[in-house]
Each structure stands twice: as C-alpha cells, then as structure tokens.
C-alpha cells in the first residue's frame, strides 16, 4: 500500500524530528477563582491601581473589543475593569509573589468558569461542556485574545501572528480572536484546512468566506434552541438549490442522507465543483444500472441531467 509506506515514513520522520524533550514551562503561582467569593468591596482597587505597575497592559486594553463592556452602568463591582477577570487586586498587592488569576496557568475548566461568569447569557456551563471544543479540552483563551499584543488600533489589524498566517488574503475575523479564523482552526484541524489548497475549494484563501460562515464554533444557547434543520446550511448561499422542487433528488437533496456532502467535499477537492468523484463516476456509485447509458458522456452533458439538484419540469432532471 502506497499510503501505508508513506504513513510509516511520516511516522519515522515525526519521531526523528521530535528528538528534543518536551519541557513543561514552570508555572507561576495563580490565585484561585474563589477569591471572588471571599472578597469585600474594599478588596477591589480599581484600574488605576493595576495601571501603576501594568501601564503597558492597561494602555493596550483600551484597544480590546472587550474594553467597552468593562464599565457598563449597573455592573457589579466584581465585573468591572481588570478585576472582573483577574480577581480582586488587594490580594495581589498583599502577596507580591503570587499573580492574579492568570489565564496562562489555570486549567481549561477554570477558564470556562471565569468567562461564563459574564457570558452565561451566551452559553450555560453544562451546555459549553457538551460542545466538541470543550470536550477536546479547548478553553476560551486558546482562541480568544483579551489583551491586544501590540499598540494597535481597535480594528485588530495586527495581532502579532501575521508571520504564521495560513492564507495571506483572508477575510477579517472577529477582533477578539488571537488570529484570523483559518490560522486558528489550522492549529488542530490541519487536514481540513489543507483541503482549501486543492484545485477546487470554497474561497477561504481568497478572503471571500470564513470557517464560521458554515461552522458554529461554539453554538450559543440560542443556536442550541433552533429546532429547524430541514435543509443543510449550504442553501443559505446556494438558494437556487433549496427547493422544494416538483421533482426532488431526495436521497441527496438534504431530506435524507448526508445532503450536499453525499456528492461534494465542502472544504476542497481536486475534482471540479468540489465533487467527491470525477464525471459520471459520481452518479454510478448509486445508479449502478446506468453504466452503459450514453457511454463517453458525463451525466450532465448538454440535453442530459443538467438540473440534478432538483427540477420543476422533468422527473429525470433534464431541465430546470
């Protein structure tokens, strides 16, 4: 098996390449999140106190998309300013050896607890825990960046990740993300992102789409509560194939089966129009009796099955 040999060679290369030993970074001490419960009003010192030492961080934070929410009228004291996320400052001032709640050192679960203190209207804790990214141990700060890395404006143009971009011309992403979406997603979903380099692909590298146009990265409470799923998300843009048609290609039209992905690879393919198979081989997977039917032609040649997504005029999809 060609692929088997390739896999062996790749594993061997992997082993050789990873000769150096993994070294766990020495973690600084972090104060527990339960400090919020212990804190009195006088323990919250305000942003000025933080800025006395962390003036660079404080200056950049005004560029964060988060900044505007941090002094909302009526917000309780423990949900304002730096201390909303990092805990009451007095504990930190008293114990200089410790750090405030540090999102570099606490666990994914602790990050989740901290963020959901304010974002519970987006996701409930059991709900987030049930999502695929949480199950994989991904925390909010693996993708989101609360402090901009540079002294940049709030459009989020520079995030210090330009050199590691997967595609150079991507569409602007949410300013709260650490990098553009394809670059972020590529950290784990490398095989999927690689498909966008194929000859036929959805135009993410060209900056016309984002991963989140199709994928709900962390479905919110409201997303979870949408019961309708009777057509695939593809028809949001490809409305001309949404139907319903008088003659539905029902096993693949989204009413059963995998819908569009029965025939198309949505990320990319080396066949035209994202097809899984080339030319008439695609149809012959199911229509095995049609092998000798007009040999030498594609199934969608002129005058043939040109309305394969559904037709209002012809049961054999010969016209729209």
């Amino acid at each position: 098996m060609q692929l088997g040999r390739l896999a062996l060679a790749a594993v061997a290369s992997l082993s050789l390449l990873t000769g150096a030993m993994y070294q766990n970074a020495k973690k600084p001490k972090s104060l527990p999140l339960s400090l919020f419960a212990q804190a009195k009003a006088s323990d919250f010192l305000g942003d000025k106190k933080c800025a006395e030492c962390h003036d660079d961080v404080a200056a950049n934070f005004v560029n964060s998309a988060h900044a505007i929410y941090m002094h909302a009228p009526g917000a309780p004291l423990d949900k304002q300013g730096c201390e909303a996320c990092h805990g009451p400052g007095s504990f930190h001032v008293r114990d200089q050896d410790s750090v405030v709640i540090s999102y570099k050192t606490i666990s994914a679960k602790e990050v989740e607890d901290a963020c959901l203190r304010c974002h519970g209207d987006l996701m409930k804790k059991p709900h987030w825990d049930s999502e695929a990214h949480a199950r994989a141990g991904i925390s909010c700060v693996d993708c989101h960046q609360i402090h901009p890395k540079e002294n940049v404006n709030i459009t989020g143009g520079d995030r210090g990740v330009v050199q590691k971009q997967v595609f150079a011309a991507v569409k602007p992403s949410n300013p709260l993300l650490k990098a553009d979406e394809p670059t972020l997603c590529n950290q784990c979903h490398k095989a999927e992102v690689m498909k966008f380099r194929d000859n036929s692909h959805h135009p993410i590298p060209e900056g016309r789409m984002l991963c989140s146009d199709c994928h709900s990265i962390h479905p919110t409470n409201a997303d979870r509560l949408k019961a309708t799923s009777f057509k695939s998300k593809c028809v949001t843009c490809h409305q001309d194939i949404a139907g319903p048609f008088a003659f539905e290609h029902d096993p693949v039209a989204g009413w059963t089966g995998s819908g569009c992905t029965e025939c198309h690879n949505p990320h990319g393919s080396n066949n035209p129009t994202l097809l899984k198979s080339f030319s008439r081989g695609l149809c012959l997977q199911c229509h095995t009796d049609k092998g000798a039917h007009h040999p030498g032609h594609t199934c969608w040649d002129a005058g043939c099955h040109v309305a394969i997504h559904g037709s209002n005029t012809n049961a054999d999809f010969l016209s729209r």
Partner: protein
Amino acid sequence: MLAMATVFAQQAPPTQDQTKTDDQKDAQATPATPAPPKLNVDLGWSTWGLSGNENKFRQYATAPKGLFLKDASYGDTFSFLGKSDVLLDAKSPWQDDFLLGGIVRLNSGATKINASEQRNRFFSPDPSVLEGSERLTYQGGVQQKLTRDFGVSFQEKFDQQQQNFSAPYAPLNQKTRIWNADGQGTLWKDGFVDLSYTDVRYWDRTQALPDTNTQTWNAGAMQQIGDAFSLNASVARSLIRQPGVGTDKSSVDAWSAGGEWLIGDGTSLIGQMQNEKISLPTVQNAFDKMRDMAHARLVHNFGAGWSAQFGYSKLAIERVNADHTNVDNPTWHTYDVQITGRLSPSVRLTAKGSRETMQGTAQMETDDPLGLYWSNRWNGEIKLDATSDQINSYIVFGIHQDRNDARDVNVRNQNLTYGATFEVQPQLEFYVESSYDLWSGNTTDPSSPNLGQFFPDGTTFTAGGNWTVDEHTYVTANYTLFNTNNDNPLGLPDGNVRGNFFSGTVHYKTAAGYEFGLTFAPWQYSDRLYQGMGYSTGLIQLTARAKF
C-alpha cells in the same frame, strides 16, 4: 470544579453603591503611555501579467491592477449614550473585489449597529470565453440589550448573484433577502429563552425557478438546574410558499428536546432528540414525510490528559411517494468512539472511529428497484501531534468507506496528512506539509464500468518560511503544489492537473512606524489533457502602510 462553580453561584457581589463612580475610575486609569493610532491606511500598487486561461486564473477572485487602497480602517472611542466606540474598515474599495464594513457600539456595548457590503467578481473555470460572474452582498443589523441579560436583534441580508457558467448550464440571476428578528437571554434565574422569526425570500430573475418565501418561527427554552444539569426544548414551524407552483404551500414542523448532565468531575452525558413533520404537496416524487433523530454521548476524562467518548445516533425516516403513500421506513444507527491522550509528555494521540448501519430497506424510485442508500459506512482517523522546543510535527491518517450491499458497491477514501514546523531560532521558522488523497471505487455489477477510473488520487504539498531579519525587516515565503492523477476516460478538462503557486513578501517597517511590502507571486496551472485550461501568471505588488 463543581465547588468552584458553586462559589460563583453563591457569591453576593458588592453593589454599585459601594463602588467608586465609573468616571472616577476612568480618570484614575488614564495611562501614561501614548494613545494608540486610530487610523490605518494601507496603499498598494499591483500589476500582473497572464498567459493562458483567464477564466481559471480568476476562478475565485480578481487581483487588483494599478494603484489601489488596500485597506483603510478607523477605530475610536467616544462618549455618546455612555461609553461608545466605532470601527470602520474598507478593503480595496473601487476594485473588482471589495469589502466595506462598520460597527458602532453605544452605551457600553448595550446597543450594537453593524453594516457591511462585499462584492466579488470571478469566472467559471472553462476553456471557452465566458462573461464574468458577480456576487454582491449587503447586510446590516442592530442589537439592543433590554436588560443586562436579555436583548433583541434584527438582521437583514441581501445576496445578489449573477453567475455565468459553461454550457449546458443556464446563467443564474438571483436575489435572496433574509430577515431575522430575535429576542434572547435570561429572564429568570438560570433560565434562557429564545424567540425568533426568519423570513427568506428568493427571486430568480431568469424566471426558471419559482420565487420562494420561507418563514420560520422558533421558540425555545433552556433551564440550568444546579451546576451540573440543564434541559432544553424548542419548537419551530416553517412555511414555504412558491406562488404559482402546485398547492403553493409547504411546511415543516419540528420539535426538539435534550439535556446535558455533568455526572462527576470527569464524566458527562449528553442527549438530544428531534422530530420533523414535513409536508411538501408540491413534490411529485419521493421525499421524507417524517424524520426522528436521537443522539446520546458519554464523555469521560480519565485524568493525566486521557479522555474517551462514546456516541450513538439514530435517524428514522418515513419516506413517501408522489401520492403520499408510504414507500419505506429505513433507520440508521451510528456508533462512534474517540480516545484522546498523551503517549508521552511530547506526543498527543487522537483516535476516533464510527460505523453507520442501515436497518430496513429503501429502494430507488426509478426503473432500478435496488437498494438506494449506503447500507454501511465506516470512518476512522488517527492523529499524532508531537511537540518539542523547536519542532511541532503532526500526522493524520483517515479512512472512510461507504458500502451499498444491494449493489455491491464500495467507495473508499484514505487521506494522509503530515507536516512539521521547525523554529530554527525565534526569528526563523520553516514549515512543510503534505497531503495524499487516495480513492478507490468498485462494484461487481457487470453492467457498470470500473468505478475506480472516476475516483482520482491527489497530492497537495506546501512549504514555506518566515524570517524576522531584524527589527525592521521580515520575509515570508510559501510554495504550494497540487497534482491530480485521474484515468479520465472521457478526456475532460480539470481531470489531470498540476498547480504551482509561489508567493514571497518582504516587509520593511521604519522606525517611525511606516510599513512597506513587496510581494512577488508567480503562479502556474496546467491541465495535462486540456491545454486550453492552463495559465501562467506573475503578480507584483507594492504596499505602504501608515498609522495615525
């Protein structure tokens, strides 16, 4: 963890009257460092030459030519209805492809107004001369918090598509308008409600397809009980109207219910079910009248970075014919398992697999009465990530197989992707990645040709590097290759192709903060059987960026 969450739930945060005023805090918080730039202007000059097929070169987008505004963005904060800010961004305005967008947030983010416009011009890849295609989208909306935890929103989107395809496909000239109104948030302790209405209108200006209006009402509620349990339920109704077609009105009624249960610190159980009743009186051949779906998943973390998941899904359908008499009732059962953990401190393993089986029969409603759907599907994937101080490497092997027992058809796909990033020093990094797609298809049906001839293999390779030469200069380079091997018995275009794409950029940033860039990108695409599809191009682009 639960104890920690309980602490949050039980805490009584200090009240506003115990605090300093916001203005007092803001005045105190003013840092000594300079104010960040508000305006970003990125100018570009670009030229490209082309020999060969312009349709293929401009399949996805059109590179600008001459002097152009690559990017202009403005961001600022101001006081109007409380703390507010504005973000405006224009990417290559007045070019074939552009994006304009803006967002204004007022009253500490309680009100959000957004709008954007995007246009793309492109071509269908074809050896013949074709008119260009265009897609133009506008969208805008407003979100308003009514309380700290409940808000309403209204969004509207227009999507105009005018596309020209190669024969035999007729051009598309269509417009879609989507309205969405939504109210969502917490109205009682640990609860959540969502009420929404979506109206989708589709107009086909070629008159080949009927105008279609889909209205969907959705209502749902979620309740968290303690820190470890939540339940949700929702109902939805969609009405689909196609004036002048059949009985004019189709509908889908759906409900769903489910929940999540954190059984312990390391274990959770998730369950969800959904039912859809579908009425499509306009459809004159087979379709699903009813669908029942159920899903359950058990997740357990063993500690030390190891976790396992077991999932089960069921889909049962009632399929009817044109006269709405029953055709068949197939049911699919899918089992999946995933194991993740660290083999050593530097190597992480993810292995997952699934199997789907069909129970009952479903037959094709043509002159071929054999089984319709795949009767078995298998998926497997194994992934290894290895990390060291300088090298991150990975290998992913996936296998997917579909089998139709009634037709004795097998289709198999194997994919191998591996790569590595090598950080020679903090300023210099190289990466390489390779992917192989191997397909096979076969059937013992004597009337069917060799299916494998139509499942081409493909190779994709990319390599590049990033080098920060000094505090002023950095260089990026990327090379991508794809290659398809196809028996292509019909001798069609796009079957046996090879693409070579190189992009290299040198960036220079002056001490005053101005940035300059020079990009060189020679691209070459060839079709070994169809010369007319190939092209060769070289792009040169100069950019200059300033921040104010």
